[in-house]
């Protein structure tokens, strides 16, 4: 298939999608957005950057590693975020605990706490799954 159009567009769209995805992740707790949407957007960015380079699917790296590793890391982060307040104060699993606020450019004051870490886990899992599925299907057509 002719991917020239997508390739040209990808050059500009990929960084934008990246920013949009991360933006969604960070603002999610107060404004529309969140880890799931952010993950979907970055996942789309992954698909586009794959089209741009068009390497063998099994050699394509997502965030510098294999997609399944990203899935695993995301699950691990989500799972372990629930333990933080348990370690701190012995509260039940998944009780939220907030570490404080940080001023970030564009986003403004952003709060950091276990729900945010959890959301980041979701973010990673979604990116991983989308890339994984896409790459698997690509590998099929590559054969």
């Amino acid at each position: 298939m002719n991917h020239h159009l997508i390739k040209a567009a990808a050059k500009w769209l990929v960084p934008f999608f990246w920013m949009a995805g991360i933006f969604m992740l960070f603002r999610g707790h107060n404004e529309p957005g969140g880890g799931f949407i952010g993950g979907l957007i970055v996942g789309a960015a992954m698909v586009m950057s794959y089209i741009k380079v068009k390497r063998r699917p099994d050699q394509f790296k997502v965030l510098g590693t294999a997609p399944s590793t990203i899935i695993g890391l995301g699950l691990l982060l989500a799972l372990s975020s629930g333990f933080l307040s348990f370690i701190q104060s012995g509260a039940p699993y998944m009780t939220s605990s907030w570490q404080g606020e940080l001023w970030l450019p564009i986003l403004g004051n952003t709060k950091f706490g276990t729900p945010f870490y959890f959301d980041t886990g979701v973010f990673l899992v979604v990116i991983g799954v989308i890339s994984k599925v896409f790459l698997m299907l690509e590998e099929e057509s590559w054969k």
Partner: protein
Amino acid sequence: MVWHIYLLIGFLLALSVPIWIKFIQSYFGLVVALWLGYGLYALNTNLFSAGNIVWTDSFGISFAFILTGISKVFLNIIFLVGASVFIFAASYLKTSDRLNQFFTAFTLFLCAMLGLVTADSFLLTFIFWELTSISSYMLIGYNHEEESARKSALQALITTGAGGLCFFAGLILFQHITGLSSFSELTRIELKQSSLLYTSIILILIGGLTKSAQFPFHFWLPNAMKAPAPVSALLHSATMVKAGIYLFLRLDSIFDQWNIWSHSLTVLGSVTLMLGALTAYYQTDLKKLLAYTTIANLGALTLLIGFQHPMSSQVALVLFVAHALYKAALFMIAGIFEKVTGQRDIQKISGLGKFIPLAWIGGGTAALSMIGIPPTLGFLSKELLLKVGILEIWSLPIWIIGFSLMGSVAWFVGIKPFLGTSHIPTTQLYQPGVLITIGPLILGLSSIVLSFNPFDILGSQLAESLTRDQQSAPLHLWTGLNLPLFLSITVIVLAGLGVYFHPQILSWIKNNHKPSKPLSDLIFDFIFATLLRIASYLTELFQNGNLTRYLLLIFWGLLFFASSLLLKIDILSYIKAEIASELTLLPFALAVIIAICISLIVTTQRRLSAIVSMGGIGYSIAALYVLLGAPDLALTQVIVETLSVILFVFLLHEVPLLKSERKIWPNQGIAAITSILIGLMVSFFTWQSLTSEIAPSISEFFGQNSYLKANGRNIVNVIIVDFRGFDTLGEITVLSIAAVTLTALLIGQTSSREPK
């Protein structure tokens, strides 16, 4: 030492088998034998304490054990026979290459058996009961390259497993009716008659009958002879098949007032005894001979337990001890013959007495005990048994015929192969060494020593196991010239005649009886094959790989369950009254767009148009979300739609072409009707669930607490990551699993496509 610890060590031994095997190979058997020997010593010097660890109080399950009474008798025998068999196994399996598998299962089985005969709480007993079934499955199927071994193992597992389930159901029922959850509480109660209790007794009875290979469930036992010799020696003498006998003995004192209990036991016991003894007599395979006499003996035990005589349970215990000792020894001897000559046919083995003298002593004494020649335990038990048998005069012929036939068999297995001269030159025989003969020697000699009841070993244990209205059995070899003694001599003479006329009878049977599979085996095979056929038919019906059919089946199922609700409502008036009043222009316009897209998908022949129309539906729904004030959902919907359209375009070459020649009716017509009905149903239920207030809505709570408690103003996100965070965790796990599964699916597909 607490009994729990002792058992735990056993299970740890079973788990650590690979490490042991690495260093000492099959001599691991000696380690287990040592552990069992210590058990025997500790039990009889009262070093064990029962202890109690609560597991699940609400179900009455606790790790409580009984180490007295019947349990003690069984324990002693398992220790003694187990140790002998493990010593035997250490030598027998020296050249085997799957020692890990064998010893893990074998040790596990032994521990399960020790647990089974000591467990106090019903459910714990059941757990051990199942554990013996499972581990014996692995043992019987040890030679898994042979199809017959796999089949026999499966047959044993299915039969005892099905019985186990009945037993389980019976125990739960019993526990439910009486409120009791352990054996030690049983003595305290008087049972009231009720039909539920009746059912529970029958179920428990079935459990014991299948395990102890009683007619009509006896067929699995001879087939289980596919197992290696040590397995047969342990499973079919003192353990596996005796589990049912143990259960009968445990429960007999409270159930014997029930006719169904005692009548089933006596009737099935006598049938099993006759069937086993008659079949055993004309077998020529050593192990088959022993297997059928085991069935006969199990029948004898069951028949004895079924008797109402106050002494019968005690006699059954003595018979159990005698049988366990000689049968295990003879099974081991059969294993030695097979090792030495490579044969199992009794007509081809002879003259081995000089070649393996120690085995001769062990096997010979065991055979004497089985025939019932004094001074052996076999003689003692038969004296007692006939003493009880005289009182139930109808059973006397059964006893005499059954035990005479078994006596003949004992001669063929334990004495005749040692006599005369060998058919095979000594140079072709394999010299198995001394270690292999120790097991049978111990057991054969114990049969003699124990019959004198030295230091009242046997007597004191039997006395301990007496319950309220039982009478102890006198353990004297010489009770004077009386009727039992004469009957006993008759049995021995008949056994001698059986041996003398054996060649004639055997050739007569050969001429008049075509060898065929036993009827019960055929019935089992038929039931099994029918089940498989039904299963494959159902699979073909529901899972034929056609996605359209899957969807239709699911939808029909949904409609079927929802129809009863839907039919009650007058839908038209409902639409007028409720839906029409709330309809506004913009959502209506979107609905029209969606409808147009759908009709496009249904009618188009081109894939790309169909995909774009799908996207159109998705975006319209996203727009609906915006209108209804759910920006989060809209955002997600738009991105998901975009991504799926991209994916579809990529996969375009994989999507099957839409066929133009598809039949409109019935295929498409049925699909259309089903879709419309499902659409109506889903929208109706959605509407209904939104408008009817069953419980106060939870969204109020989320709205009020989202910022206060969870520090976030985006309620949807707060719900996802905080309030319902645990759900999300599950969802992303499922998502990950789906990705992994997809990998597996695609890999499977490519490998099947490989040949090109």
